[in-house]
């Protein structure tokens, strides 16, 4: 077990290194000169040179790469002498546009992304799993057909389109909700809830549809297993068999999926955040892309990749805890 964990962490480290390397190549080799874009329109060649020196952009590629890498662990200094700026570890640089610490920028926006992810996950887990289990138990009935048709539509609807339809119906036509404006929870819990309700619904519709389809398939598979027949033969009722023996093997894959989907949302529900004007991590990246703010784009990419990689490890460990069959076959 310990050996397995060490191996996984080592593999994760290598993948992270590769992610850093490739993001670095793309942003520093392919995109337009950042020094020129920072300097703006009234700019002299000397000024561009000074900026390049300050940011270390005059160094060879690999020197820049290793400086960037080292900064994550030990921090770095920008410029030299009296004008030097120290960036504490873990340092992933400063925004070219606002000069704000990128990591701080991400941390500031993380609560919004976490709120979106948690609320949506609760909604889609409850509705998706429930719909999937009921559909599986009532396989072939009108309920099953209806729910699966709904789920099929759910996975086919682009979420920005759903966002516009919801906003048009709930805000403009029916006026059940005010135009969403984000306020801190402590100021007005009601307004806070109203601001997040539509983003939750939009994301939950998509994921709940996927989860309902997957849950249904899994439960149907499990219902056909021998151990289920044995449990029935022992005299347990249909419902009791399903709850005591059927749910655990059917829902284990859902747990693993949830981990990765949740982590992906932490890296920013880019489209949803943008459409609803929520200032989360995804929106941060989106705004940065519009003005070619490379350190921010790199920072968000790295943090998002980190979240997904960590989630994958956690999920695999959880899988071993939850599913005895995996434990037996691996030992």
């Amino acid at each position, binding site marked *: 077990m310990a050996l397995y964990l060490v191996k996984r962490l080592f*593999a994760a480290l290598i*993948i992270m290194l*590769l*992610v850093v390397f490739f*993001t670095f190549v*793309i*942003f520093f080799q*392919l*995109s337009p000169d950042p020094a020129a874009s920072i300097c703006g329109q009234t700019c002299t060649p000397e000024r561009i040179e000074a900026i390049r020196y300050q940011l270390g952009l005059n160094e060879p590629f690999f020197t820049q790469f290793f400086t960037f890498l080292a900064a994550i662990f030990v921090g770095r200094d920008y410029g030299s002498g009296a004008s030097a700026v120290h960036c504490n570890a873990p340092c992933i640089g400063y925004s070219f546009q606002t000069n704000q610490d990128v990591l701080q920028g991400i941390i500031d926006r993380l609560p919004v992304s976490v709120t979106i992810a948690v609320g949506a996950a609760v909604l889609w887990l409850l509705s998706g799993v429930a719909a999937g289990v009921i559909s599986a138990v009532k396989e072939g009935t009108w309920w099953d057909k209806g729910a699966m048709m709904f789920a*099929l*539509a759910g*996975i*086919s*609807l*682009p979420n*920005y*389109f759903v966002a*516009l*339809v919801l*906003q*048009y119906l709930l*805000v*403009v036509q029916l006026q059940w909700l005010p135009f969403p404006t984000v306020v801190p929870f402590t100021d007005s819990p009601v307004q806070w809830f109203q601001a997040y309700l539509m983003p939750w619904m939009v994301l939950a519709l*998509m994921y709940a549809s*996927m989860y309902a*389809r*997957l849950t249904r*398939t899994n439960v149907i*598979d499990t219902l056909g297993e021998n151990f289920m027949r044995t449990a029935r033969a022992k005299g347990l009722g249909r419902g009791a068999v399903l709850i005591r023996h059927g749910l655990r093997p059917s829902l284990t*894959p859902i747990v693993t*999926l949830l981990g*990765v*989907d949740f982590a*992906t949302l932490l*890296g*920013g529900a*880019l*489209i949803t955040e*943008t*459409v609803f004007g929520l200032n989360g991590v*995804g929106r941060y*990246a*989106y705004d940065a*892309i*519009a003005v*070619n703010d490379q350190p921010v*784009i790199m920072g*968000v*990419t790295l943090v*998002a*990749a980190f979240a*997904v*990689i960590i989630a*994958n490890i956690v999920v695999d460990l959880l899988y071993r805890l939850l599913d005895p069959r995996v434990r037996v076959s691996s030992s």
Partner: protein
Amino acid sequence: MTASLSNQVEEFGRPDPGEDFSPGAGALKRILGKPSVILSLGFLVFIVLLAIFAPLITQLSGYSPYEFDEGAVDPALGGLPRGPLGGISADHWMGVEPQNGRDIFARIAYGARVSMLIGIGATAITMIIGVVMGVIAGFLGGFVDAAISRVMDFLMAFPALIFMIAILSALPQGNRPLLLVLVLSLFSWPATARVIRGQTLSLKNREFVEAAKTSGAGWVPLVFREVLPNLSGTIVVMATLAVPTFIATEAGLSFLGVGITPPDPSWGQMIASAVTWYSSDPMFFAIPGMFLFLTVLSFTVLGDNLQKIWAGGL
């Protein structure tokens, strides 16, 4: 967007390798009798014809997708289309865009070209790379398998959407559709390769492959004669399910402003420009939205049904 492809593949990746993958003609006939399948096929044929004949059709309808028609919008209302339902009339079959009065039907037709071209192009490249890599990894095993699997792990751990947006915004304008196809394929082939690898692994140890091997066949003929024909069902199903995810992702990227560059139309980009008008001119987002939704849905319905045949569910 990209998550859904791998999930669908996940659901699919379970047919028992011991089963025969080839469907009977009866099963095919049975799904062709389902109303949902007939409707989906009908809609897709309509969209494909619309895409292929877009230049001819727009000559018939009278407006090109780039042509401004100031007479169709009302400057007194801030440029809203004249007439009800976003200006739908005998002249403009699906209304006009607010402000500049471009014909929405013409833009939908040309947008269908973009969606189909990118959806099918990216699927073709993804399937080719995915199948080649998956078969090689599964069949050769050992070091080659380890290397390919690590590359796949690496690409699948990437936050693909953010990365695609970043690459597309960093790259020069150039040939936008081609660029989109390449970027979409780059992040999608591992999902295909993983499933193909798994099935190749299980096929490799089946009797008929063993038999061919003992009779002295080299690995190339083995792959082409014994393995690939048995993977064809999986490939058809995965391809059918990949097209809609690519169409949706292209629309999403164009919606975010890094896909197809204006003035060329794309459904996603049309929805994006409708965002500021959503309360006063809802038809402007509803029309491209419905086209996008129905196209994605139709492909998914087809893929689902094909999958049921091959998985032996029908």
